[in-house]
């Protein structure tokens, strides 16, 4: 018995010894797997980015991956994945997860969206308390692969069968969210990049500090794009090394440092100026010199401030530390009073010495005196729109308030945020190009979209986290769950523009021929940010044109179905949404898919049917359409005419009630102004006649009595073009220009200056000219009688001959040009006055002569 017992014990002992010895080889731990891998370099399956998605940081040498080493075993290193690329890790396929899930409509997300709504409150509480976890101290960051694998394994275990409910339940827990954020940061930098950062003095310590702090991780990841994140964290390390205590202990300083670091890396601005920018904002905040609103900024809007443009301190920059400091101390105002603060500068195109604002001579003499400080120099000397708008916006920025200059055609204005609402300053036109943008889109709608998106702080964070989860699952070859997460992210936050674009990229990669998926994405955009509830038509249109149509449209074989889909975008839109937008961009994108004139005509029919009924759009669409048509090949001489007539008829069919009269008048004015600008005479005439038919009451019957010359009036069917630049108000009344050529008269501004600036008349065809009569709005001022007006003629609008050297003024309102002696002909006429600028209004312009047959 005892022998048997001894044998049994011995055999157990041997088995255990052998078992312990063999176990690690049979069932290796994750860490052991990693260690083994380190010893055996393997194949790395690299960047599977979508073929035409550019990596923006290709020149970022410091953060390039090591070359892959060829071998047979798995590689657990994580290749850096930027915002525009999709990588897959070297893991086995999951057979349960390689199916593209069925498309779902919004209603099928109801249950998950209800959970998300509840999660928002929990997120709010969690952010207030913040969550820290020190499970990855500094010394472990020298081995980021091990950390990544450890976290990835535990995340996947917790995600269980990867259904939506489990994923949302996972996200409700702060420790889990911290894990997801850590994974995402590592994936965005790559394990090589993390290792390089950790190897820097203080790098591992900073990484540990970031990766233990959920709010900090969230701020880094979910406040805008994370392009060049590795470089961004290297920037942050520079600041951390110098100002560690403040960064760790003061949330505002932490945000200041992080946003400076991220934005300078993202924009590709020089590192040394990043440090100066940080020093300015951090010291200003510490000294209590910034507006109190600064401390309440979130990460995303602090990016707009600390990442404001023009950060070059050495040059004449508004965003340089020297200028910011001067403005901070000399233009201290409550936020709303920065609107209008541009008038602290005198508007002067030339300074008192006569030097133009467009030359360095303008500020040059005071450049030393003002210590190379641009705002100060302009305050002393003056400036025009650029200086004024920069002054107002950088005044706010220097005090820690979100603002930015913005371009308008031929003008500079600015945007300023007051109480959560973006307002325009010094603005003269609807078209704004904002200077600071997170997504590379500079239309005004994107500024408002950004504001609306991030104002829903927790909802957007959940959506962004779902995108991060989708990216992670996609990288882990869990395609089914990845699709589900992307789609839920879009439905959770329909305003998440970058999320939509990213999902389109994934779709292109994984399901390029899945019509239903593409159509579902299209509908999500149209019913989401493109709906009248949100009114982000510009952003939605860009998303469709750039990210959705290229995938979706080639899958639609029937042109009719395609045109109906294009028109569906316009069906429910109401007004311009957040701001007027370039509807022509979307129309151009859509019509580009038409293969021939028949398809184009059908497209125009469908789209015009919808758009011409919308008073805000009719003018812009008419202008676009006529412009487009004028560029069509016109081999048979009829195509353009046919298209133009179709469009004018479409406009003519629209009802113009008394209430809508102004809108129609404005729309036609805009269209006729565009025709003037483009020299499209036939279009000019067609719109003029249409305006007369639809808005007769807008034309004053002036009953003009003017002298005449032999022949017939040949200018009635001409195009007339003033030399003045038209503002919005002038444009609305531009149909009066057409009326100037008619018997009843109209109104057109004159601008005469030098030998080239004057009023142009483009006749229907080449004619013999006997004379011209101009009826002025007011008598000519005495000091403007000399020099007299001159009439020139040309066959081509380029080479001019003077046919009447001196006009005959009757002392009242009429100028006559007697060309009978000249025996001249031409298709173009020009009235000029060689002298200083003179701008008399005109009410009638009539050219007499005879058309030359057989041109």
């Amino acid at each position, binding site marked *: 018995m005892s022998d048997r017992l001894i044998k049994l014990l011995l055999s157990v002992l041997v088995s255990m010894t052998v078992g312990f010895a063999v176990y690690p080889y049979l069932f290796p731990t994750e860490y052991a797997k990693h260690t083994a891998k380190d010893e055996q370099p393997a194949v790395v399956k690299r960047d599977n980015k979508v073929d035409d998605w550019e990596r923006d940081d290709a020149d970022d040498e410091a953060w390039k991956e090591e070359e892959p080493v060829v071998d047979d075993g798995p590689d657990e290193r994580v290749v850096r994945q930027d915002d525009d690329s999709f990588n897959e890790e070297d893991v086995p396929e999951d057979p349960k997860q390689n199916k593209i899930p069925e498309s779902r409509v919004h209603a099928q997300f109801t249950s998950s969206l209800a959970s998300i709504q509840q999660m928002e409150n929990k997120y709010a509480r969690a952010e207030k308390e913040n969550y820290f976890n020190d499970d990855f101290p500094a010394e472990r960051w020298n081995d980021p692969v091990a950390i990544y694998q450890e976290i990835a394994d535990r995340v996947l275990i917790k995600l269980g069968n990867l259904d939506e409910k489990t994923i949302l339940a996972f996200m409700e827990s702060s420790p889990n969210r911290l894990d997801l954020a850590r994974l995402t940061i590592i994936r965005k930098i790559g394990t090589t990049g993390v290792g390089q950062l950790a190897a820097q003095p203080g790098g591992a310590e900073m990484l540990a500090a970031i990766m233990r702090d959920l709010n900090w991780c969230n701020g880094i990841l979910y406040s805008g794009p994370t392009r060049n994140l590795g470089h961004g964290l290297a920037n942050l390390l520079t600041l951390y090394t110098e100002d560690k205590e403040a960064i760790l202990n003061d949330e505002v300083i932490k945000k200041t440092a992080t946003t400076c670091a991220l934005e300078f890396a993202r924009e590709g601005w020089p590192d040394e100026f990043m440090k100066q920018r940080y020093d300015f904002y951090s010291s200003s905040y510490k000294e209590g010199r910034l507006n*109190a609103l600064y401390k309440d900024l979130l990460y995303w809007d602090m990016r707009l401030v600390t990442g404001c443009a023009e950060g070059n301190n050495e040059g004449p920059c508004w965003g340089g530390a020297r200028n910011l400091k001067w403005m901070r101390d000399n233009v201290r105002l409550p936020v709303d009073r920065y609107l209008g603060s541009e008038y602290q500068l005198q508007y002067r195109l030339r300074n008192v*010495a006569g030097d133009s604002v467009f030359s360095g*001579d303008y500020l*040059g003499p*005071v450049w030393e005196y003002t210590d190379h400080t641009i705002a100060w120099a302009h305050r002393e000397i003056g400036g025009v729109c650029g200086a004024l708008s920069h002054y107002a916006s950088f005044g706010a920025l220097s005090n820690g308030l979100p603002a930015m200059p913005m371009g308008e055609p031929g003008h500079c204005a600015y945007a300023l945020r007051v109480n959560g609402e973006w307002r325009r300053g010094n603005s003269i036109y609807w078209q704004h190009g904002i200077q600071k943008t997170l997504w590379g889109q500079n239309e005004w709608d994107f500024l408002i979209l950004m504001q609306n998106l991030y104002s829903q702080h927790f909802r957007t964070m959940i959506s962004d986290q779902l995108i991060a989860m989708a990216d992670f699952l996609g990288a882990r070859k869990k395609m089914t769950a990845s699709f589900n997460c992307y789609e839920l992210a879009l439905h959770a936050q329909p305003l998440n523009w970058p999320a939509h674009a990213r999902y389109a990229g994934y779709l292109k990669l994984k399901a390029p021929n899945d019509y239903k998926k593409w159509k579902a994405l299209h509908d999500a955009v149209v019913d989401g940010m493109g709906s009248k509830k949100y009114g982000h038509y510009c952003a939605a249109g860009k998303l469709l044109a750039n990210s959705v149509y290229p995938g979706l449209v080639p899958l639609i074989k029937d042109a009719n179905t395609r045109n109906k889909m294009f028109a569906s975008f316009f069906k429910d839109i109401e007004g311009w949404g957040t701001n007027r937008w370039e509807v022509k961009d979307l129309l151009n994108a859509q019509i580009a898919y038409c293969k021939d004139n028949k398809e184009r005509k059908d497209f125009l029919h469908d789209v015009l049917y919808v758009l011409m009924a919308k008073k805000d759009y009719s003018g812009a669409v008419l202008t676009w359409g006529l412009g487009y048509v004028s560029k069509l090949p016109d081999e048979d001489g009829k195509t353009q*005419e046919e298209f133009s007539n179709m469009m004018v*008829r479409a406009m003519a069919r629209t009802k113009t009630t008394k209430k809508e009269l102004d809108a129609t008048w404005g729309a036609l004015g805009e269209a006729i102004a565009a025709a003037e600008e483009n020299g499209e005479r*036939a279009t000019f005439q067609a719109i003029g006649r249409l305006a007369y038919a639809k808005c007769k009451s807008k034309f004053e019957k002036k009953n003009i009595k003017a002298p005449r010359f032999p022949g017939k009036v040949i200018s009635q069917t001409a195009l007339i073009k003033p030399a003045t630049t038209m503002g919005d108000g002038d444009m609305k009344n531009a149909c009066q220009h057409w009326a100037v050529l008619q018997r009843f008269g109209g109104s057109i501004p004159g601008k005469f200056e030098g030998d080239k600036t004057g009023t142009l008349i483009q006749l229907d065809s080449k004619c013999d000219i006997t004379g011209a009569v101009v009826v002025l709005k007011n008598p000519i001022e005495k000091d403007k009688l000399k020099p007299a007006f001159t009439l020139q003629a040309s066959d081509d609008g380029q080479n001019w001959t003077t046919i009447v050297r001196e006009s005959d003024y009757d002392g009242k309102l009429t100028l006559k040009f007697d060309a009978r002696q000249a025996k001249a002909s031409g298709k173009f006429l020009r009235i000029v006055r060689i002298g200083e600028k003179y701008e008399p209004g005109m009410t009638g312009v009539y050219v007499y002569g005879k058309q030359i047959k057989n041109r």
Partner: protein
Amino acid sequence: MNRRSLFLSLVSLAAMALPTQAATMRSYPDALSKAGHKPIVLFCYGANYDEVSKKAYEEFVKQHKLQSVLQKCIFVEVPIYQLPDERQKREMEKVIGKAGLPGGIFSYPSLAVVDDGGNLRGIVQKADEIQDVEAAKAALAKLLEAYDQQESLITKAEKAGGTVKAKLLMQAAEVRGVNLPPDAGEGGKRNKGMKDNVGLGARQSFDPITVMEKTFTMDSNAEVETYIRGLLNKPGYSLAQRQEMLAALAGHLRRNNGSVDKIRSLYTEMRELDPDSMYGAYAQGALDMWVDKKPIAATAPSEINRTNNAIISDSDGPSVVINDNSADDTDDTPVINDGHTAMGTRAGAGSTPKKDEPQVDSMEDE
């Protein structure tokens, strides 16, 4: 001396021993109505958003550190709230009143010196002036002294007439650091009966841009010089205005092949008029740039290289390229142009009339 008289005397002595307090008023309209010839000092400060203002308020107001320079003034605290709530709005309305603050206040905190007509006569608001109580006190004291001097001259002028009045008002205008109020200028109520033989009117209506623009209409350098010298020879203009005239002349010569020696002498003349002023510095800068050819202009910014006013985006969408012949004159549609009556019968240029196209009445022969 009875007990009562003794008591009053003691109280008076005690009052004299204490520093005189500035008259503080709760509202700007009250201050305007009661100021008389006294200056009103408005302490405008960011009341709920600005730590710098908070510190200034603590020192200037709570700790009375400006008191010694405010003795002859009416002092009003003007809180400026950021995004005010209803109570704060009411408070601001009460303090500021309907007329509003005068223009020219560019930054808070600041100390604005205003007269009873609501004219801003001067202001302490530059960063280096307002940064601490000593600097602010010194700047305010200087400003108030200038105000007193100017006001006393205007008061004297009010009692005088004709050319004496003009002379006194001109002296008032010459006091540096304060603005002459508009009502002391031409046509103003404090100006009645003045016979302007000193150029006060020309001084007050002077516009340097008009002068500069006029030089652009002249045919020769000699004509410009004659014009500017003519202005310079007239009385009344301030030093800054004269410097502006010289800047216009020198600028014109510089751009129109004037000799370097001439330009040097003009900028030197301009500088020497008032070397410590901004235009004194301008003149020195001009000498450095254009006479001594130091490379300043290369580093100074100009509007065109930094306004970003061309950042209107182009479409990112697919562009349409369909045989773009827009540069040609494509409008070669055949036209039946029968002169005066043509328009009336044609619906579209070169097309036959269509039922649903608009028609326009014809132009009749005269």
